[in-house]
């Protein structure tokens, strides 16, 4: 039964229209880090994590070029908050601080450009629709939908030390509102209820910065991401540990400048994401994960992700239980 659900999910994933796409590979990892679970009504979740994204691989299409002179690093601090308005509805906010670095090592010199500051944020409503689809998805399964927006809180006019405005890829913010759609389906296996799989898709329809360099427009490419994850749970150091392994497919359309496609942006990738989380306390979870590209097909010639590491803590504050009135 569970295997059927899994196959059905994979078929659904591939049946989706994949003409979507993204922001640059070096940007803020917004889509990666949204989608906290909907918990019991009144539960507040608060997460803080650090994300390190290293791009040091120069590709032409799928071909890796023999050139590691360009290094693009993004350090991000991510703060998630999620509040369960009801048992089926939650609101989630993702706020970021970002440090972007472009380092060129060439001819015996190193040149660094960087920017730092508050990045864009995400506001997302999630609804658990399991009860409406229980006959279709069966027992031990859940189905959730999300709708949100990216808020352009970050600066898009940062300059270097000479006062020259950095390009869009190095800005903490995008100066554009995006629409974000999320759906997630998860189910546990009958033969081992702690083992589950999750299928999650996120589509980001990007807005346009209408004042890029003051006289043109910039639009990051629309982005589609699909995750297929398998996770299990076991006892470790007298607490609960959750290892998981995910496959992520990401497809990003070309950016546009002045309304025209910008070469050497966009592409599609498949990543392998091993993840390990452990409950340090009943209400505190530590997690760490790596994101490793196993397939990269960029448009034109561009830097492509080499690896990404994310680690953080998630705190859960449950509502006080309502004690029965014994009088």
């Amino acid at each position: 039964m569970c295997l059927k659900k899994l196959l059905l999910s994979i078929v659904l994933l591939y049946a989706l229209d994949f003409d979507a796409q993204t922001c640059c590979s070096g940007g803020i990892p917004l889509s990666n880090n949204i989608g906290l679970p909907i918990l019991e009504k009144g539960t507040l979740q608060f997460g803080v994590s650090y994300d390190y994204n290293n791009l040091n691989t120069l590709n032409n299409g799928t071909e890796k070029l023999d050139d590691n002179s360009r290094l693009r690093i993004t350090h991000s601090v991510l703060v998630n908050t999620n509040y369960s308005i009801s048992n089926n509805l939650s609101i989630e906010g993702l706020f970021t601080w970002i440090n972007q670095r472009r380092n060129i090592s060439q001819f015996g010199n190193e040149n660094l450009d960087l920017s730092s500051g508050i990045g864009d944020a995400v506001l997302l409503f999630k609804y658990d629709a399991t009860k409406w689809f229980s006959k279709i998805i069966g027992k031990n399964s859940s189905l959730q939908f999300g709708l949100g927006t990216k808020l352009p809180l970050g600066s898009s006019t940062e300059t270097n030390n000479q006062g020259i405005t950095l390009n869009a890829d190095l800005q903490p913010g995008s100066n554009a509102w995006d629409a974000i759609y999320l759906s997630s389906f998860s189910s546990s296996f009958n033969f081992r209820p702690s083992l589950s799989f999750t299928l999650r898709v996120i589509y980001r329809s990007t807005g346009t910065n209408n004042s890029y360099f003051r006289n043109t427009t910039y639009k990051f490419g629309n982005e589609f991401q699909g995750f297929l994850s398998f996770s299990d749970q076991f006892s470790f150091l007298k607490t609960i540990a959750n290892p998981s392994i995910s496959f992520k497919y990401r497809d990003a359309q070309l950016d546009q400048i002045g309304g025209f496609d910008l070469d050497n942006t966009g592409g599609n990738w498949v990543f392998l994401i091993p993840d390990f989380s452990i409950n340090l306390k009943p209400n505190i979870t530590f997690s760490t994960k790596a994101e490793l590209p196993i397939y990269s097909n960029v448009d034109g010639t561009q830097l492509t992700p080499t690896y990404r590491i994310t680690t953080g803590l998630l705190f859960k504050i449950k509502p006080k239980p309502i004690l029965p009135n014994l009088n």
Partner: protein
Amino acid sequence: MKNYILKSLIFLLVVSCSSSDVNSDNNQGTQNNSPWLIPINEVRDGGPGKDGIPSIDSPNFTNASEVNFLNDNDFVIGIVKNNEAKAYPHIVMDWHEITNDAIGSDFFTLNYCPLTGTAFAWESIANGNRSTFGVSGLLYNANLILYDRNTDSNWSQLQLECVNGQLIGNKPTLLNVVETNWKTWKSLYPNTKVLNTQTGFSRTYGTSPYGDYAVNNNRFIFTPSIINNALPNKDRVYCIIDEDKSKVYQFSDFTNGKVIKDSFNGKDYLIVGNENIINAFELTAEYQNTTFEYELNESEGSIFKDDSGNTWSIFGKVVSGSQTGNSLQNPKSVVSYWFAIAAFYPNPEIYAMP
């Protein structure tokens, strides 16, 4: 135990979040307020960063007869010095923009901006000493800004001037180059050497990094401050530059070959060429009354002749006749996309056929 792990993890998280790299040439750390001769708010960060587009500092060449990586219509930038001809194909220069090279003991920097279609060669000198030049990663009016590796000063290619840094206000000493297609160049200079793709860098030569940019008149990656609609933005024109003024000549006016005497900004010029190649020369008093005529003679590498029977190369040198060895001087000139000339030298004159 778990408390200990928790505290350790929080500590590590805080430390990792506050870590920072140390770098030798940090473009963000200290403010550099050195003045610019061009409006700094119109200088753009091109994206790849300084030296992100690597210059070719150890160029390799192939003899014309062995070239198999060029099509007849591929553009090349040609230079002749000390009777040695060299060609620098766009398909290579698109990815490097600068080649630091030498002919004999004459060092020069050949630079080409794919976004404005402009190529120059100038002596590899900065602050009186030999220097290589690199790609700064900055653009002004969509045009390449080079930097010299002696003083780190920034040079605007199409403004032909150092616009920032220790050498601000310095002007490069130009060498004459022409831009034409491979078929035309190799017919004029069959013994030419050609910059090949053994550059030391891994790139997809032959594929433009800018897609249809060169032919799409509506498309800009970096929009210049001035747009002049007198001609389509990406029309390739030949341009004479005199101080802050310019006059452009359209290749279509030279179809099948022409020699034109023209005046611009109080000076007289001889403009010679055909639909594939144009060059101009200052018309000194000595030649004011000379009659010139277009006559392509590929076997001797001449493209026009005078009424005394001398034949002249596209670089304005007499290659046969009684004045063999004489030459005409070239003005500052360049082949460019129309929009770039109009942005740097506003309201250019456009030559009109009489």
